[in-house]
């Protein structure tokens, strides 16, 4: 655990002009150490917060005050990381690492901070904590790659969540929306950054981004706090989404309630983007529909959602 004063030292050491030639190396070394320890601390705090949000599903409604405080902390960290530029670095690293189709930087950014709830009903909680992504990001990338691929796949799947894909999503870019959208435009302009992400499948990627912005903007924190709402004025259901659920017994639930992340029998947490998109009701949820659809099929689904 790091002392509270680390932050100030960090900024102080950064701003401090280099004293003498001899001290240059030492002070810069110290500064680098301070920098990395601070960012490590911040990253671990972010991971911890996400796990906390993920785990607060239960038989009983989670404590709203606690959730709000943790969410605010996450938002604060994200804002800081965005200002520092480490956010960009991290997402680029993630996007570079992920060569699979669903590797849009934005998607990863979103998935990175998304907390996904595994099926609490089965009582299996296998949350994978996010590996610490330092500025280097290299060793972590590989681990992340698997995770993100799995996450992406699971994220794409409209059907039941399986406990084997325990990555977390936080539907919602709480306060991330503004910076997230900035990144979109930023990345669009920046060729270098665009390169990697475009490799991942340009068409689907753009759609994914749009889809993300669509889905997540409209349903972000509604899922987060969705469980606290019995009835939410849900956005008008996209006819494409209806199609997705066509194979599920529509009489079993209301699309609105699905979209608002209303919890049904299996006690999912409120922050379950996937749950909200997938069908509710005991039967679909317990169905063993494979979560690992063909990527092409997922692309197709994405297109439908985006309505292109």
């Amino acid at each position, binding site marked *: 655990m790091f002392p*509270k004063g680390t932050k100030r030292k960090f900024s102080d050491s950064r701003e401090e002009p280099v004293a003498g030639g001899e001290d240059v190396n030492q002070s810069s070394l110290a500064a680098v150490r301070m920098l990395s320890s601070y960012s490590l601390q911040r990253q671990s*705090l972010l991971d911890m917060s996400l796990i906390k949000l993920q785990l607060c599903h239960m038989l*009983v409604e989670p404590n*709203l*005050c606690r959730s709000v405080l943790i969410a605010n*902390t996450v938002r604060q960290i994200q804002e800081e990381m965005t200002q520092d530029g480490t956010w960009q670095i991290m997402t680029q690293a993630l996007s570079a690492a992920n060569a699979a189709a669903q590797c849009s930087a934005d998607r990863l950014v979103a998935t990175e901070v998304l907390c996904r709830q595994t099926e609490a009903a089965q009582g299996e909680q296998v949350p994978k904590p996010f590996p610490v992504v330092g500025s280097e990001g290299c060793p972590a990338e590989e681990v992340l790659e698997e995770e993100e691929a799995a996450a992406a796949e699971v994220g794409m799947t409209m059907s039941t969540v399986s406990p084997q894909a325990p990555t977390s999503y936080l539907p919602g870019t709480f306060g991330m929306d503004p910076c997230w959208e900035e990144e979109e435009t930023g990345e669009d302009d920046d060729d270098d950054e665009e390169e990697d992400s475009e490799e991942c499948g340009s068409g689907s990627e753009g759609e994914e981004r749009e889809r993300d912005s669509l889905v997540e903007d409209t349903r972000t*924190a509604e899922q987060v706090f969705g*469980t606290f709402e019995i009835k939410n004025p849900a956005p008008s259901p996209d006819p494409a989404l209806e199609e997705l659920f066509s194979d599920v017994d529509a009489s079993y639930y209301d699309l609105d309630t699905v979209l608002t992340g209303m919890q049904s029998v299996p006690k999912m947490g409120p922050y379950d983007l996937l749950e909200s998109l997938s069908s509710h009701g005991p039967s679909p949820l317990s169905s063993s529909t494979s979560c690992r659809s063909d990527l092409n099929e997922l692309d197709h689904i994405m297109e439908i959602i985006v309505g292109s």
Partner: protein
Amino acid sequence: MEVVTILLYSLSSPVLSSPLPLSSLLPLPSLFSPYLLSSPLLSSPLLSSSPLLSSPLLSSPLLSSPLLSSPLLSSPLLSPPTSSHLLSSLLSLPPLFSSPLLSSPLLSSPLLSSPLLSSLLPPTSSHLLSSLLPLPPLLSQPKGELDQVGETGESGEYNVYSTFQSHEPDFDYLKSLEIEEKINKIRWLPQQNAAHFLLSTNDKTIKLWKVSERDKQPEGYNLKDEEGRVKDISTVTSLQVPVLRPTDLMVEVRPRRVFSNGHTYHVNSISVNSDGETYLSADDLRINMWHLGITDRSFNIVDIKPANMEELTEVITAAEFHPHHCHLFVYSSSKGSLRLCDMRASALCDRHTKLFEEPEDPGSRSFFSEIVSSVSDVKFSHNGRYLLTRDYLTAKVWDLHMEKGPVETYQVHDYLRTKLCSLYENDCIFDKFECVWNSSDSVIMTGAYNSFFRMFDRETGRGVTLEAWRETSKPRAVLRTRRIYTGGKRRRGDVGVDSLDFTKKILHMAWHPEENIIAIASTNNLYIFQDRVSPDTQGPDLGSDTI
């Protein structure tokens, strides 16, 4: 007048079965509650020796004042017949401040150490009081029960006065979530007659309970026999006057009102208005005002729910009515701000009348600044001029006329400031501590970890740490002050910061509205501390024992 008559009558009645050596009791002032004497509960010989019995303290108005408002202490502790016992077992404590403050722990019972209770006490505080010794232990108290304290035995422990199940576990079918029966808050109503009324709430439903006792029953009717059957008139040869005979004390607790379906979120506070007719209940995003007599209607007076839940960043953490002005109330938020609202301004008090907020110190900002600034409890002072708030590390006193910052700030456990990360990890940073004023608004008190609680004298600004833990303090022993070792010279008995037990937290407590009697809820036990009785034990001011 009638009361006194009955009392005298029952004293001389041969039917009186009380084992009490009633003659040993002091001569009764006319105000003396009859219940005290006739109750068979008065078994302690301590009563006769206690000088307090002759004090006007025991007059019924005092005795019947609702003592405690904390979820733990809702027992009619100080109302007849129990108050006499409370007062009788006292200990001495060196005066901590200018006025002698506390005395020994009247330890509470082993009852509360049953696993069921231990898991329930702090989060639920559903059990008000406990401990008994001669009564048989109350077995398997299910969740949601309220106990009320009874009288003490010779060892200085309390008997349970009454136990009742306040709420049952419920299920919200719409959301498929359980509604726990754990009780979040209990508040007494001002007493208007012989019965006591209290409000108790779980996450969703508030209930009004009536606590009444019966310890006499009339006998000797002319037309009916003992079982109530009508007598054969021919057998009645003489007339008799029915008399009230003392019987075993029977405490009846009945639900009088159930206020349900008023809240979507978890109720965290209830507060009875000074008008005695209305009360407010606050959940995370809304505050409702109810009339005590009307259960199917409530008025929403504050609603901070954003149109888009995505934008939710602040929740309501506590709310309270002003003690004198029935149109004023205050509510605190998770961002550390307090809002005073005047209900005369508008029906919906979303716009505050006054906003109390301390500007953040930019130098001490950390990731946990906001969490640590979240106010866990807010209390008006008895005189209605000040507000006491508790956030994670400090207790602050605000003047209602000054909004830009608190007038006093007390560090409760500043040594935790460097441990915030690990406290965040184990969720202790979300603990909600309560805070209380004393009767004269000169001392404030709040809880901490390791079974410690802190008291601050507002006049001197000094604080003291005390411990509520039966292993370290015997009944009727003087309570000694404790210290956390944070550097410098280490004294014997100092506790290091790393050896603090964070599972032993004191979240709930209450201070008698008129007396220097406090009740502290520790993990499994309820401790009641009292002012020293013997005046000759006034020692020097131990102001040096501050932390």
